[in-house]
């Protein structure tokens, strides 16, 4: 046994280069803590720069691994470095760096600034590991760190009672969902005799249907809560509302995409060949999620809550890609492309909300009135991002929606595509409720003393990058689509 383990050790050491993106994020988090301890108060921003830089490095390393090393199963099959994992890691790295830039003006000068960046890096690390994980024990612990990091980021502004309350609510939903998922994993283990997804897939194929359906339902509770799927979405608006705006932006993109990617990896691998009818179940959940999210967004007066419900609806669209995985080869590229388009548009929207909140002290729809006269650039970014979330050609959101709809039709779920198109049309109304006063109303808005005169370079950069990405990924969609086509998930 010892010799066997020694050989295993050699193998695992040789496989380390494939884990370079994850290694970059580990260094981002751990050295972030060290920097937070070592730097004086005025220099804590350096920790943020380190974390943002490492995020970008992780994204670059993901691309390098893809091009240079190729895809393979590593670490004795507990970790899979495939197109899905690397593309997700790249997206997470860039989106995480944008979130650090957005957070910088909010947390600068606070009493634990460095730790904030470090925890953010750890959360991104957990999201990346979740995208790579092919073993339920690793999925459980990765989801655990992802949840913990999210709770901590949400509750970071400890002086605000709202942040604290949001964090506690999030915690309660999150831990209960996590415990439920672990219970489901325990049954999977029992049915298959191992914790690797491949073993589980082989085992569940022979297992009795009742137990498979029940345990899968329990697992989907845990992953679905991260992805804010209905009916596990209740925490979303409260948490986005109570958390600092950059953290809400972070939560709406990184943990959500990680949860959906985990679903896209776990379900096809553990339930091969549409076992227990999971594709139909996911399609139904997707339809309900996009409907509930879109309809609930209509009545919101706070833009953050509106974006929260909009992000629930977007989860439904993303889940369409997951539901089509068994039936169509186009589903995975569509899912990834949608994730990129959604991340760009949503981060841009949140960046404008943050800028408005810092200048006008409010995130109500009324605070956006007359934004077009006073801040044409912000308004342009806001309009672009919201219309991309809606799906107006030629923006990124349009191409993304086209992709998931055609994937759904390809997979024989045309009814889902019809629901999706209907909800897309309905979703124009809530987005227009923000856009219309911003563009049409005369300048001014609620006269409040500006809290900070300028958005700061970091925030401007974040806004610029995401808004440009929203356009570029839409107009020049071809290379991205062909890249996404290359992304194959390994079983």
């Amino acid at each position: 046994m010892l010799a066997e383990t020694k050989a295993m050790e050699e193998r695992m050491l040789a496989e380390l280069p494939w884990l370079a993106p994850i290694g970059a994020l580990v260094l981002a988090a751990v050295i972030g803590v060290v920097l937070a301890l070592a730097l004086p108060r005025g220099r804590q921003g350096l920790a943020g720069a380190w974390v943002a830089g490492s995020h970008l490095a992780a994204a670059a390393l993901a691309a390098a691994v893809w091009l240079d090393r190729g895809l393979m199963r590593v670490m004795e099959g507990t970790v899979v470095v495939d197109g899905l994992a690397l593309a997700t890691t790249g997206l997470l790295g860039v989106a995480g760096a944008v979130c650090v830039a957005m957070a910088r003006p909010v947390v600068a000068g606070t009493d634990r600034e460095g730790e904030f960046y470090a925890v953010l890096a750890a959360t991104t690390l957990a999201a990346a590991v979740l995208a790579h994980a092919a073993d339920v024990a690793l999925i459980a612990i990765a989801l655990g760190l992802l949840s913990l990091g999210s709770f901590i980021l949400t509750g970071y502004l400890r002086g605000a009672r709202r942040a604290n309350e949001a964090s506690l609510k999030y915690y309660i939903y999150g831990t209960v969902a996590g415990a439920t998922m672990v219970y489901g994993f325990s049954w999977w283990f029992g049915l298959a005799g191992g914790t690797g997804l491949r073993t589980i897939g082989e085992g569940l194929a022979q297992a009795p249907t009742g137990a498979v359906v029940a345990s899968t339902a329990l697992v989907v509770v845990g992953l679905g809560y991260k992805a804010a799927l209905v009916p596990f979405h209740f925490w979303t608006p409260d948490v986005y509302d109570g958390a600092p705006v950059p953290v809400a932006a972070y939560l709406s993109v990184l943990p959500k995409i990680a949860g959906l990617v985990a679903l896209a990896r776990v379900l096809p691998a553990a339930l091969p060949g549409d076992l227990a009818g999971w594709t139909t179940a996911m399609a139904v959940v997707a339809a309900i999620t996009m409907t509930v999210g879109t309809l609930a967004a209509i009545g919101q007066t706070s833009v953050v809550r509106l974006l929260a419900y909009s992000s629930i609806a977007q989860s439904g669209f993303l889940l369409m890609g997951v539901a089509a995985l068994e039936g169509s080869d186009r589903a995975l590229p569509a899912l990834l492309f949608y994730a990129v388009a959604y991340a760009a548009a949503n981060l841009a929207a949140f960046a404008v909300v943050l800028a408005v909140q810092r200048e006008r002290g409010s995130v109500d729809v009324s605070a956006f009135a007359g934004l077009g006269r006073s801040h044409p650039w912000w308004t342009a970014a806001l309009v672009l991002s919201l219309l991309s979330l809606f799906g107006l050609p030629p923006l990124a959101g349009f191409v993304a929606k086209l992709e998931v709809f055609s994937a759904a039709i390809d997979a024989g779920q045309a009814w889902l595509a019809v629901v999706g198109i209907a909800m897309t049309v309905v979703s124009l109304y809530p987005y227009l409720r923000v856009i219309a006063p911003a563009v049409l109303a005369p300048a001014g808005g609620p006269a409040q003393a500006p809290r900070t005169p300028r958005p700061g370079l970091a925030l401007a950069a974040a806004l610029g990058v995401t808004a440009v990405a929203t356009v570029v990924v839409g107009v020049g969609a071809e290379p991205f689509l062909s890249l996404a086509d290359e992304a194959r998930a390994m079983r």
Partner: protein
Amino acid sequence: MSALGTALVFWPAAILMLVWGLYVFRTASMARAGLLLLGALGLEGLLFLALASQFLGVLMILMMSGEMIIMVFFMVMFMSDPGGLMGMDMTHDKRRSAALAAAIGIGLAVLAVATDWPGAVVSPDAPDVQAIGYEVMGRSMFSFLFAGVTILFAMVGGVLLAKEGGRLGLAEPGDGTSRRDERT
């Protein structure tokens, strides 16, 4: 352990565990609630021992003592009525939650009995300490290392959230992390 020995340990421990687990949520005294939970989870460790998982059983008994005694501590600190002498009601949706929980419990139990589980080992058996060690330091090494990172950030985050004022001194009013902000 023989099948008879397993049964002799299993039944009393399992029944006591469930009863204590239920009483955690029925007693009004917070110290008792926490200690009952400690007892229930400690008995679960005994069940592990009876089911041949020696290392896990012993580890469970060890870990739960420390963890649950902290739980008791917090219960006593943060409850308005730690001794349970004032008869405060600390439940909501009592009937609905009980009904839902009972339905799920019965569902899981029925499914557990009805399912034809794989494997047919008569007398319980489990991998020994060495096999677990090789698993942890072999196939699951990556997961194990990642668990270490998780614990590190649980510590960092726990201190971050719980301690008023940071490493850099108390927060300044206006930056959103000070309690004084709430009042201004």
